[in-house]
């Protein structure tokens, strides 16, 4: 089989699984999850085959696996869709396939498959737990199975379809289709427990916010199609097209079409990857089930935004001369760096275990954006690659923690939030698998030196920033990395170390193998994923493993980015920030008694409150956008425009029509037309009344009449008509 044929088939199994579950097997939870996991496994195997073939092929950058089909006619030509596997695709496909499969497996455990039905569970609410009686007659409260289990698997299967479509597309339009399918699934899955008002609000918020980015992105696509006449990668990234784009002017002074399109497309990424100022939806999206948070909002969908900007890097960097960043890149560098720091600061003051990770995700995505902004294309892809593994690992680990604590909550009956880190502590002994994997993930996130994947990717970004002499970005990112290490250690310390601060945490238990197995596998990747990217001239271990990432992913671009030279300064910076942050985090939070406030609250004072409330961005948007639009719709449009002006005019017209109708009715219709109608009806009635005596009901009289008439006609014909 041709590799491209196999690529075509990659998205198919999840889609089939989605339809099969929705239409046929949604009654059976077992069959549904078997279908979903089988589909994910098939796609995974296919992806791995593709990855192997791609790495073996040697010069994938020049000759990507691709094939095209005619989709719809556009004038004389066809709009073509197809598949495209180049090194970037391969890297993305690799982590996407693995994380999706892991998360599918993890979902089985997380949604409590095998547990009894809940006592009063109902669709749309998280399971409340079921009461079981053991052999000694004791009653226990245990987690209960999700009522909409099959639906969950259907949704994540559809999501997987969207992601695969996005990754293997050879043009921006089908990429956008996959992008939007994922947006829909994100909406559906955030609002999975739709009976919770907060989940509903979060779903709507996520949908609308990303929609803003998507609309702008669509504008960019339209403009690009208008100029280039195609959306296929091989066309739009060609020299001619890029030249055309840079030489075409726009209504905005001094901005070329390439810049404008780049900004538009980047704005799509801002929405999808939750960059400032559209970052507000991602923390709220944690209302969804944790596998969803891990898959959509850490590993795959938000990565898709970064994937997009990496993909369109030729457009973004079009017109770059002598290493001078373009306007787009500057904007990206600014927004990325700002978001990285900004989200990291918020993460400091969050108590919810998943929210911390959410802000961490925003922050890390900002890192990647900033990296692209300074032209560190390979570094961004590398960080995207490693980040997907350890962030998925962290989310799944946090889910496991929540699950364990929830178990304790159900056991003790305490009324506490199982996601609040201040209610945990000492889980290291209770949940060893979770602890160790979470620790690996956390260290990778903090960039713990040398062994974790995060170190290598983050170091590469810092090194790039240093090499490009982009000091503001370097400083901001370094500070953000320090904060990252700090809040990561804060999280680990509060959750796992020390003593248990609540009864529930005391009774937490390790999760099932379906949940821990993905953790272990992902933890392995969180370590080894960095190794292929170790710079060749790194002291001691450099060159031990070839810098595969740089060689391979770098192939994607027509001109290879030259490898930056090793420098001690960024290495020292990254060593310092990561180890310093970790140490500081452990020192500050090493011994927090139950019920104590956050130790940062006092020294930071009002700043802490600001951070705790996420810089009041939600409130700000409420004032700037939500309330004006409410006023616009309720008062201005509805009351003034609609009720007063339009309705008034309509009432005026209707009143005139009404009186006119009255005139017609009283002076024309009633006397003239009705009179005529009545006259006709009455006449017919009278004629009928006098004529009905003919109809006697006696057949013979009818026949005689008929004969008389027939004879009369015949005779008159013979005597008067036929004879002149």
């Amino acid at each position: 089989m041709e590799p491209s044929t196999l690529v075509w088939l990659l998205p198919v199994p999840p889609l089939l699984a989605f339809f099969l579950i929705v239409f046929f097997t949604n009654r059976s939870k077992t069959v549904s999850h078997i279908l979903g996991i089988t589909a994910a496994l098939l796609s995974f195997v296919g992806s791995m085959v593709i990855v192997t073939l791609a790495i073996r092929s040697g010069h994938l950058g020049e000759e990507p696996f691709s094939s095209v089909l005619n989709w719809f006619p556009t004038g004389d030509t066809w709009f073509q869709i197809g598949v495209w596997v180049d090194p970037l695709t391969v890297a993305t496909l690799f982590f996407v396939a693995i994380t999706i499969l892991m998360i599918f497996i993890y979902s089985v455990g997380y949604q409590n498959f095998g547990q009894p039905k809940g006592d009063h569970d109902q669709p749309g609410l998280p399971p409340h737990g079921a009461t079981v009686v053991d052999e000694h007659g004791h009653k226990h409260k245990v987690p209960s199975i999700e009522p909409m289990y099959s639906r969950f698997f259907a949704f994540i299967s559809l999501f997987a379809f969207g992601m695969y479509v996005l990754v293997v597309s050879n043009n921006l339009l089908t990429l956008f289709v996959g992008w939007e399918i994922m947006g829909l699934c994100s909406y559906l899955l955030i609002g999975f427990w739709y009976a919770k008002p907060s989940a509903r609000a979060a779903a709507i918020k996520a949908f609308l916010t990303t929609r803003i980015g998507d609309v702008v992105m669509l504008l960019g696509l339209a403009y690009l199609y208008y100029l280039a006449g195609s959306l296929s990668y091989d066309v739009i990234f060609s020299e001619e097209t890029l030249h055309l784009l840079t030489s075409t002017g726009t209504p905005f002074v001094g901005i070329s079409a390439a810049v404008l399109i780049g900004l538009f497309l980047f704005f799509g990424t801002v929405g999808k990857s939750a960059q400032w100022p559209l970052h507000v939806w991602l923390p709220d999206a944690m209302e969804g089930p944790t596998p969803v948070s891990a898959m959509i909002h850490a590993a795959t969908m938000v990565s898709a935004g970064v994937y997009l900007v990496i993909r369109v890097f030729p457009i973004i960097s079009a017109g770059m001369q002598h290493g001078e960043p373009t306007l787009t890149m500057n904007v990206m560098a600014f927004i990325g760096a700002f978001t990285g720091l900004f989200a990291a600061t918020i993460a400091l003051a969050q108590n919810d275990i998943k929210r911390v990770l959410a802000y961490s995700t925003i922050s890390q995505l900002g890192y990647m954006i900033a990296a692209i902004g300074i032209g560190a294309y390979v570094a961004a892809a590398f960080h995207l690659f490693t980040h997907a593994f350890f962030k998925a690992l962290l989310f799944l680990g946090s889910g496991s923690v929540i699950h364990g604590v929830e178990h304790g909550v159900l056991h003790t009956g305490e009324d506490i939030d199982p996601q609040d880190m201040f209610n945990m502590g000492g889980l290291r002994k209770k949940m060893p698998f979770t602890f160790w994997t979470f620790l690996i993930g956390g260290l990778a996130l903090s960039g713990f030196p040398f062994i974790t994947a995060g170190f290598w990717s983050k170091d590469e970004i810092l090194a790039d920033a240093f090499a490009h002499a982009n000091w503001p970005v370097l400083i901001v990112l370094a500070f953000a990395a320090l904060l990252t290490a700090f809040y990561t250690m804060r999280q680990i310390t509060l959750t796992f170390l020390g003593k248990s601060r609540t009864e529930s945490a005391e009774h937490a238990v390790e999760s099932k193998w379906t949940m821990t197995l993905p953790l272990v596998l992902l933890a392995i990747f969180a370590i080894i994923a960095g190794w292929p990217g170790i710079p060749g001239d790194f002291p001691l271990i450099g060159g031990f493993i070839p810098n595969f990432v740089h060689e391979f992913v770098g192939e994607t671009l027509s001109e290879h980015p030259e490898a930056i030279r090793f420098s001690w300064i960024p290495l020292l910076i990254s060593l310092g920030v990561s180890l310093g942050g970790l140490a500081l985090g452990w020192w500050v939070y090493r011994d927090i008694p139950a019920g104590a406030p956050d130790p940062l609250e006092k020294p930071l004072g009002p700043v802490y409150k600001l951070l705790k409330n996420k810089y009041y961005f939600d409130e700000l948007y409420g004032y700037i956008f939500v309330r004006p639009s409410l006023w616009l719709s309720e008062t201005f449009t509805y009351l003034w425009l609609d009720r007063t002006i339009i309705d008034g005019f309509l009432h005026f017209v209707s009143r005139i029509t009404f009186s006119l109708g009255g005139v017609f009715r009283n002076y024309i219709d009633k006397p003239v037309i009705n009179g005529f109608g009545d006259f006709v009806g009455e006449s017919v009635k009278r004629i009928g009344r006098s004529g009905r005596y003919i109809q006697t009901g006696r057949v013979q009289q009818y026949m005689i009449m008929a004969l008389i008439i027939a004879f009369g006609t015949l005779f008159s014909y013979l005597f008067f008509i036929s004879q002149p």
Partner: protein
Amino acid sequence: MTVMQVIFLVTAVVSLGGAVMVVTVRNLIHASLWLILTLFGVAVMYGLLSATFFTVIQVVIYIGAIAILMIFAIMLTRRVKQEPGSSVNNNWWLAGLMALVLFTALVWMLSTWPGFQTTLPELPQDFDSIKVLGTALVSPEGYVIPFEIASFLLLAALIGAVAVAWERKS
């Protein structure tokens, strides 16, 4: 006056007399017997027209089936006493007028037709009208479709008659 003319005239007088009795006599059984007489006369007419098949068929169908069926029906629908009053309705004079007018008109119109006085032609030699008729009725070039339709009509009438006259036990 040939023998044939004599036979024709006698038969015609008997048949028409019988027919007149059919439509005038009060007793329905007698009417049906007169009808049988008339039908016999018609059968003889067929014989005069050398349509032997029709002669026999006339007797089988009209006398053997239809007339007997009518007698049956008369007996089944007879009241204990004969119904009083006239056997004809109030429009009988109009009906008679119609019949007369029609007869006059028909005879007048026929008499103006040049073929009215056609004399009897000789039948072709070896002409077996039954064989020809039988072949014509069942050959695809002949009348097989009307024949089959007629058979269907008969079947339908058979079933219909049973269905209509069936006395449903409630």
